[in-house]
């Protein structure tokens, strides 16, 4: 914290009149990111799928689809359903498994300027550790994101994310095993996010990311059957943004480690809200599905905003003022 404050002061001192080039790079868990924009796990495959659509080298980081020690087939169809300003999904963490990831997916990711963060999933603490132990051999992995918040698998996932004791257990074991920094992805489906944020921090997490999806449901009234085979599913997209923003803000108030904000970001304005609330970086998720250039637009928009306000990103993060417009300073 003191270090961050010193950096902030130094940056402020540099800003004289004339040419101003905002710095939008950020350091989290000892890793340097060229900008604070990342693509959320499960919405960006293994990166390569987007290579012909956008310039991947411009991204802050790519967070790959959740990887487990062994490959997983996923849930039966239907797995997704669009809702008002959002979508439900219950994919069931279909993935190629840690070994195939290292052999077939990582070599491409390694060639990029964007950081590579691997989302890790397991059904038991031993599973998480085993997956990390396999991935530790991967050259070019910058960090792990521990998925203890998937709402669509019967055991593991959210079970760990909704019991603070289990959160501590799986984070501590994973941290011990991990060769790379550990980001813990939290579930929003809890009563008090602060309890879980602190549990992860106490167990050694280097950073937090939140939120994963909200547990939701949809029913076809003609057939009176669920829209998703898994019955319940995770809600994402613009619909969740205000709730996710509140949770991210509360998490930043609860811990000293960096927090990465996720939830319904489709524009630079959305991202800036998270950054002002205290997130050190953000992830673009569902928008990747229908507008693959969203992350790049967010990066450009953040830079433009910083330029317009003559602020470096570090000065913007957590700069939320008290009082509302009109009631105090603007």
């Amino acid at each position, binding site marked *: 914290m003191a270090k961050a404050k010193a950096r902030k002061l130094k940056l402020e001192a540099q800003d004289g009149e004339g040419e101003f080039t905002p710095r939008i790079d950020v350091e989290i868990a000892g890793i340097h990111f060229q900008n604070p924009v990342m693509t959320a796990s*499960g*919405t*960006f*495959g293994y990166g390569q*799928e*987007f290579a*012909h*659509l956008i310039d991947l080298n411009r991204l802050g980081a790519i967070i790959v*689809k959740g990887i487990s020690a062994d*490959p*997983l*087939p*996923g849930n*039966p*169809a*239907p*797995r*997704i*359903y*669009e809702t*008002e*300003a*959002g*979508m439900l*999904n219950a*994919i069931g963490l*279909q*993935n*190629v*498994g840690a070994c195939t990831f290292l052999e077939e997916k990582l070599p491409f990711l390694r060639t990029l300027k964007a950081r590579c963060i691997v989302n890790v999933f397991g059904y038991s603490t031993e599973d998480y550790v085993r997956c990390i132990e396999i991935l530790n051999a991967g050259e070019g992995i910058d960090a792990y994101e521990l998925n203890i918040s998937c709402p669509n698998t019967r055991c593991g996932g959210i079970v760990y994310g909704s019991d603070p004791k289990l959160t501590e257990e799986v984070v501590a074991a994973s941290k011990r095993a991990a060769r790379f920094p550990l980001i813990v992805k939290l579930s929003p489906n809890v009563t008090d996010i602060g309890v879980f944020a602190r549990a992860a921090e106490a167990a050694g997490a280097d950073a937090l990311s939140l939120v994963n999806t909200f547990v939701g449901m949809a029913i076809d009234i003609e057939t009176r059957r669920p829209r998703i085979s898994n019955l319940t599913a995770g809600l994402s*997209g*613009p619909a969740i943004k205000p709730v996710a923003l509140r949770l991210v803000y509360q998490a930043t108030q609860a811990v000293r480690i960096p927090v990465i904000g996720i939830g319904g970001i*489709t524009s630079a304005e959305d991202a800036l809200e998270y950054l002002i609330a205290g997130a050190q970086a953000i992830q673009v998720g*569902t*928008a*990747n*599905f*229908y*507008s*693959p*250039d969203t992350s790049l637009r967010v990066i450009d928009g953040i830079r433009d905003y910083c330029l317009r306000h003559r602020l470096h990103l570090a000065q913007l993060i957590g700069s939320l003022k008290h009082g509302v417009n009109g009631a105090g300073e603007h």
Partner: protein
Amino acid sequence: MYDEMAQVVENRPLAGRHFLLSLYSPKQARAVRPGQFAMIRLPGRSDVILRRPMSIYDVRSRDLKGGYGLERHGQRPAVLQVLYKVVGRGTRLMAELTPGDRLAVLAPLGHGFFPEEYLAQARDASEVLLVAGGIGIAALLMPARDLARQKIPQRLFFGGRSRHDLVGLSDFKPLVEAITLATEDGSRGYRGYVTAPLAQYLEQRCERRFLILACGPMAMLQVTAGLAERYNHPCLVSMENRMGCALGVCLGCSIRVQGEGHAAYERVCTEGPVFWSNHIVWDP
């Protein structure tokens, strides 16, 4: 595959709440192969966010004259055509489109009717049977043109709820030897499902070898696949499913196929939308 903003040239209403949407997008139109699809999004809306998967019905020149294959006459395709039926929120909004409106279009997508493989099978067959249910007809015009150009005889079996669902017949007439129609309400052709006349046709010609191309509702495809298996004919099905991205990353469109573990599911958007019918697990 290109991600483009395409301008609406025409959004022509047809019978039974069907529309034929023509989009000016030369780069995409030139790249289309039979059986591929497009993802269409209404830009600027935050309530309806996902793109919608739609079969590419046809490609035409800028003035909408001539169909797929028009490059033979010195014209190059410039317009993508999508045949859709208003069924929900997304298609209801699409029905309001007028010329000049712009849409976000990702196309062409998917494997389509694997060109070499299916043409080889088609040449071996005495006849190709096109089997369509409702809006599934949209996936079959381009392969029908392909086959007609190769002088491969074909026959269309087309079913719908009522006669209003039997759209596009005039486009198929010059391409196929015969058309058999069926409607659930009996308003045209056989009363009942289209798979009934199909079963009869196959039953009476056990000694012949057909190639079946089918697109339509899941139940129709499943029965068609069953008939193909019973009479031992190769059968390609164009599958429909909800899709999040069509880029292969959301895994929302995965369906159960023959295979174990991780190989038990394949993506309609990437490995499909066309599959050999015996590759699919119809009762997962």
